[in-house]
Every structure is written in C-alpha cells, then in structure tokens.
C-alpha cells in the first residue's frame, strides 16, 4: 500500500495540472507522469504484463504520438481563454464536482472486503494465464481487434494523405514567380537575409540589423515570431554594454591594451 499512498497524490496533482497548464507540451508531460505512476500501480496490483504494456504502448507510443502532433500543430496551440458559451466553464466545473462527489460517496457506501488476490490465477505466470484466457474465451474479440487496428492504420493514412491538385512548381517556376513579384509588388529579389548578420549574435532568434540599427523582420523565422521568442534589438544593445562592462572589470591593464578608443567612449559615458 506504500506505493499507492506515495503515487496517488502525485497522480492526482499531475492530472489536475493537465487542467491548468497553458501549453499542450506541459500537459503531455504531466500525462506521462500519470501514466508512469499508473504502470507502477499495475505492478502493485499483480499485473506485470499490463505494467509493461502501459509503459511500452501508452507512455512509449501513444504519448510520443501526442508529442509529434503537438510539435506539428503546436506553434500557436495555446488555449484561448474566451468562452464561446457563457458560464460554460463554471458549469463544467460544478458538474465535475458533482460527478466526483457522487462517485466517491457511492464508493464509500460499499465495502468490498479483503481482496482475493491473483496468486491462484497467476500460478503459472501472469503472461501465460492471460494468454490462456485471451486465446480461448476472448479469441473472437482478439481477432476483431486486428480488424480495428488495420482500419485505424488505413484511416490515419487516408486522413494524413494530401492529394496534389496542381503540378509541383519547378525551380524555374519559382524563379519566374520571384521576378514577377519584384515587378508587381516590388518585393526583394535576392535571398532573405539570414538572422544575426550585422548583429552581435548569429543565433536564429536574433534578427539581422539593418544599417540604421533597426531589426530586419524578414531575417527571422515566421515560427519564432509567432512564438514570441525573438530577441529584440534594444536587448542586444544592453548585451553589448554588458560585455563592455565585463571587459572593463577584467582589469585596467588589459583595457588600456585594447587601445585608447575604447577607453575614451567609456569615459564619455
């Protein structure tokens, strides 16, 4: 029972966290916590096969699938706070509280008595016993499961497949389009500036600086701009001052060796 009393609060807290975290990735990680704790509980409940399946299938496969989709979708996948139906959130929480209270009190009313335990059923090994039942009494359900899995795989392929409606644009088409854009809209003809060309950093989240010191917006990835993780030009200026200050603190001797120009600007400040 020790494992249960340690894991139950963790599971409830992680599950509650799924309700409150903003980002889908955090929800997926909290779900992983719940699933791993559940796997350990299966071990306590004498189900070693389900313990392995829970970790391999649920935490390993299903949750990774979730993470893949979050990565594909998740750029602006943060939850909106606006309610489309008024009072829906409050009502949902109330309904949830009522459901939880009813379930828990109903379970408090009944007494299950002490558990029989699976020592008898697991005598020849848990997996052997499960296989005996699965391939005798439940063999029809098992065969139906294969049909379900094939249907799911084909369905996922059909849904994820995208039919190409026009011919694929060749490199010559792209170049012609580029020149046409230049003629019509005056768009820049050459390649886009890479990030951080004239700035102090060459990281992808640092915009290139134009000669007048403003940031070149085309130099940063659209995805980073949507996420709002782009460093601003004034912040970079602060950074430069920080580096200058650290150079200053390195010692006067080295600062003098740098040349009089640096020393002069520092005195002016």
């Amino acid at each position, binding site marked *: *029972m020790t494992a*249960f009393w340690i894991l*139950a609060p963790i*599971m*409830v807290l992680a*599950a509650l966290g*799924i*309700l409150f975290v903003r980002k*889908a990735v955090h*929800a*997926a990680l909290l*779900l992983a916590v*719940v699933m791993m704790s*559940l796997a350990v*509980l*299966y071990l306590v409940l*004498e*189900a070693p*096969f*389900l313990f392995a*399946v829970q970790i391999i*299938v*649920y935490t390993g*496969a*299903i949750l990774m*699938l*979730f993470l893949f*989709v979050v990565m*594909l*979708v998740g750029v602006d*996948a*943060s*939850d909106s706070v606006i309610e*489309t139906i008024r009072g*829906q959130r409050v009502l949902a929480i109330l*309904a*949830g509280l009522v*459901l939880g209270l009813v*379930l*828990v009190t109903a379970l408090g009313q009944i*007494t*299950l*008595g*002490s*558990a*029989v*335990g*699976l020592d008898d*059923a*697991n005598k020849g090994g848990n997996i052997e016993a*499960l296989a005996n*039942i699965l391939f005798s009494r439940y063999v029809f359900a098992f065969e139906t*499961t294969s049909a379900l*899995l094939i249907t*799911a*795989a084909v*369905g*996922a392929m059909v849904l*994820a497949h*995208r039919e190409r409606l026009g011919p694929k644009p060749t490199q010559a088409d792209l170049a012609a389009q580029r020149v046409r854009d230049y003629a019509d809209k005056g768009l820049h003809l050459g390649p886009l500036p890479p990030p951080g060309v004239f700035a102090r950093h060459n990281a992808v989240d640092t915009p290139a600086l134009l000669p007048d010191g403003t940031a070149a917006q085309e130099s940063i990835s659209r995805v980073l701009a949507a996420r709002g993780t782009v460093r601003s030009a004034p912040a970079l200026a602060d950074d430069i001052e920080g580096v200058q200050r650290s150079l200053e603190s390195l010692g006067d001797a080295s600062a003098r060796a740098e040349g009089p120009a640096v020393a002069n600007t520092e005195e002016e400040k």
Partner: protein
Amino acid sequence: MTATPYVVLSAIIFTIGCVGVLTRRNAIVVFMCVELMLNASNLALVAFARQHGNLDGQIAAFFVMVVAAAEVVVGLAIIMTIFRTRRSASVDDASLLKY
C-alpha cells in the same frame, strides 16, 4: 488489502479527465483528457481483477489499451487535417455546421 482506495483514485482521475474535456479548448489537450479517463477506467478494471481473483479485468484493460491506441491514431489524424485546413487546433473554431 482491499481494492477500495484504487477505485476511489480511479474515480477521482476520471472526474478530472471529464472536467478537462469540458473546459479545455485545445483539441489535443481534450484528447489527452480522454486518455486520462481511459486510464482511470483501466485502473478500476485491474483493481477489480485483483479484488475478485480472476484475470478477466486485466484482459478488459488490455482491450481498452488497444482501442485507445487505435482511437488516438485516428483522432490525431483528424486533428492534423482540421489544423491543416483551418490553421487552428481549437475545438471552438470548427463550428461551420452551426451557421
């Protein structure tokens, strides 16, 4: 050792999953909450299997896992398709049939 605490924990997690499905707007998180409810029911099944001393509950939990895997594959593919056409994973945005 009785199964009651396990079943109560399963009920609590099921309720949390329920509230999550009702309140969250992001389709992926709604899906995760559905998984939470399936996991909670699995815990109850395994706990009752131990309570009654036969393995049918574990077999049922196994089947629930298989169905959950199939459901997640199709569901996430649907979410991907909706995202591709609408540029949004919010469950409220897909309301075209209303108008």
